[in-house]
């Protein structure tokens, strides 16, 4: 099989000493930020982008990917032991995981979460290896109209999956698109919205924007609140699950993995949606429904597997079509651009070592994470005792140095401060940052493809409906819009986000 020879290339590339080290570093960092509430993968990857300038592209991407899926593992630790979600995707894990911990089954919950995640990660990796080439081949048929419609679909999905008001999410996407257009319009050679600032001629720099909007702003909102006492962690107890628990967990892991792998591919999906969906399903199909809310094993096993599977497969649209479907993937685009790699259909054929190396590294990383998380659990728990007041000055420093070093310019640092304030205000106004970030990344791409399509069709917008793939994508977007309008779906959406 082709897949295996390709994976062979990948493992050969990923198993060099340097790449193993970077993979380990990414996984360790990911676990660390996953464990610590108040700092997420978006901010961390943004902070580390400047560090990757000097690295070999494969090593850089391996490390950054490791941070993302590593955070899914780490997040569950805090959720189970302290009842705080370390990551948004582990919000659901708190529900049952913490209850299990109170019954003295914390160790078992941690083991189930880690092994479930490992299984899901392996399946997710295989899913990428199998489907990515197919999708990329399909994507080769894409021309500008298809790309435009695909991005539109992605943005519509991002709006629907955003929390809170749909109208505000639409406005946030538009605002993001508009900010994405700042800089020189290469086709017309005109600079737009730059206020004469040279640093803006190439567009708003991605790194300060992401760090301000997600890293610092999140921290500022945290500082508005009182801090939960994090020193009260539950006892871990035996790491071994009982036979009964294993029996309940295995089918839940399988279902969670399936749900997660599917939802991860969808634009706007990713890990968070996957874990919510899996929890809802487990609650419906479980035979021991009365246990939900009191520490149901399935309620840990399902969502934890789902979020990890989703984290893996959300790489598929990025690696095959070059379309980031979640904010984390939008940051990965930024990372690839820094390395001079254009994500897109040509990636698999033109940079096979990079593509397969990254996939192989995900499998290696998942294996490392089981070791990092289970035997070393005590280490991570002790980290939870570091008070937040020591942590956030470090975040501010790292963000400042990172923003400055992206272009050796103090303007970038001030811009980060500006975006931090903006992000904080967005939070106060109940406006979601994720649709904004996607709009920002897709803005220039959408403009380019819209223009090209219009040139192809001599200015007739019918081109978008004439081409079958483009039409399908547009119809899918329309379907999503209709779903919002329908009251029954609205209700489930509200419920899903409240739980």
């Amino acid at each position, binding site marked *: 099989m082709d897949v295996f020879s390709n994976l062979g290339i990948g493992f050969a590339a990923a198993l060099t000493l340097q790449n193993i080290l970077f993979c380990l570093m990414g996984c360790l960092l990911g676990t660390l930020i996953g464990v610590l509430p108040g700092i997420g993968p978006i901010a961390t990857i943004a902070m580390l982008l*400047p560090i990757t300038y000097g690295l070999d592209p494969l090593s850089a991407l391996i490390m950054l990917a490791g941070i993302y899926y590593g955070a899914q593992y780490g997040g569950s630790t805090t959720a189970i032991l302290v009842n705080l979600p370390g990551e948004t995707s582990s919000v659901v894990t708190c529900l049952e995981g913490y209850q299990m911990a109170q019954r003295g089954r914390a160790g078992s919950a941690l083991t189930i979460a880690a092994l479930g995640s490992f299984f899901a990660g392996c399946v997710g990796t295989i899913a990428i290896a199998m489907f990515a080439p197919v999708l990329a081949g399909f994507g080769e048929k894409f021309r500008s109209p298809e790309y435009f419609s695909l991005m539109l679909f992605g943005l519509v999905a991002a709006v629907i999956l955003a929390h809170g008001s749909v109208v*505000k999410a639409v406005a946030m996407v*538009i*605002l993001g698109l*508009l900010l994405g257009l700042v800089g020189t319009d290469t086709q017309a050679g005109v600079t737009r919205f730059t206020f004469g600032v040279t640093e803006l001629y190439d567009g708003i720099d991605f790194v300060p924007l992401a760090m301000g909007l997600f890293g610092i702003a999140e921290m500022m909102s945290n500082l508005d609140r009182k801090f939960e006492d994090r020193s009260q962690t539950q006892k871990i107890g035996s790491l071994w699950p009982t036979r009964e628990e294993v029996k309940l967990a295995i089918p839940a892991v399988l279902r969670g993995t399936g749900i997660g792998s599917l939802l991860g591919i969808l634009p706007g999906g990713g890990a968070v949606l996957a874990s919510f969906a899996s929890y809802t399903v487990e609650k419906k199909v479980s035979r021991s429904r009365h246990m939900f809310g009191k520490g149901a094993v399935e309620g840990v096993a399902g969502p934890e597997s789902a979020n990890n599977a989703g984290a893996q497969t959300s790489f598929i649209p990025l690696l095959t079509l070059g379309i980031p479907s979640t904010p984390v993937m939008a940051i990965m685009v930024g990372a690839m651009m820094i390395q001079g790699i254009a994500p897109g259909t040509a990636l698999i054929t033109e940079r096979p070592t990079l593509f397969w190396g990254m996939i192989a590294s995900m499998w290696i990383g998942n294996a490392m994470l089981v070791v990092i998380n289970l035997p070393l659990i005590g280490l991570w728990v002790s980290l939870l005792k570091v008070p937040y007041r020591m942590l956030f000055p470090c975040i501010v*420093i790292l963000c400042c140095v990172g923003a400055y070093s992206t272009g*050796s310019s103090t303007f970038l*640092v001030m811009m980060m*401060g500006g975006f931090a304030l903006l992000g904080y205000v967005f939070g106060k106004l109940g406006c979601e940052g994720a649709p904004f970030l996607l709009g920002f990344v897709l803005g220039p791409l959408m403009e380019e493809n819209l223009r090209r399509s*219009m040139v192809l069709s001599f200015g007739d917008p019918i081109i978008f409906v004439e081409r079958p793939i483009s039409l399908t994508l547009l119809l899918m977007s329309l379907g999503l819009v209709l779903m919002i309008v329908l009251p029954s779906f609205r209700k489930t959406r509200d419920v899903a986000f409240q739980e």
Partner: protein
Amino acid sequence: MIQVKHPQDFWSGALFAVVGAGALWIGRVYAFGTATKMGPGFLPNVLAWGLVLIGLFLMGRALVIKGAPLSGSAIRPQAMILAAIFAFALLIERIGLAPTVVVVAVLAALASKEMRWKETIPLGIGMAVLSVLLFIYLLGQSMQPWAWSF
């Protein structure tokens, strides 16, 4: 009497409308072009109009539908964090990385009422050493460890 019943929506609407209007004003000089040959003003104008309309809609709706009030802001932490960032921008090219990091650490730590000098000073110095080693020596980025140029 007109009353804002949904402050969150009202003020986000205002924000969107103002940004949209600003973009229209600045973008008025960019050529709109034709459908076949879109000018640099085409997409920005369309988007800015969308933003203005949604903004006005949100503001109008907020007068009718009730919603959550704005949660309060603590002034001190927010001001200190922003001060720390701007201090970095002002100082980095003048006094170099190491002293800047210490200043930033202290300013940022002041955001929390629980700030303790005994903790913050060692933290600042530790971060200064670490950032110099990591960013200047290991990653070779062009910053001075320390300097004095006003």
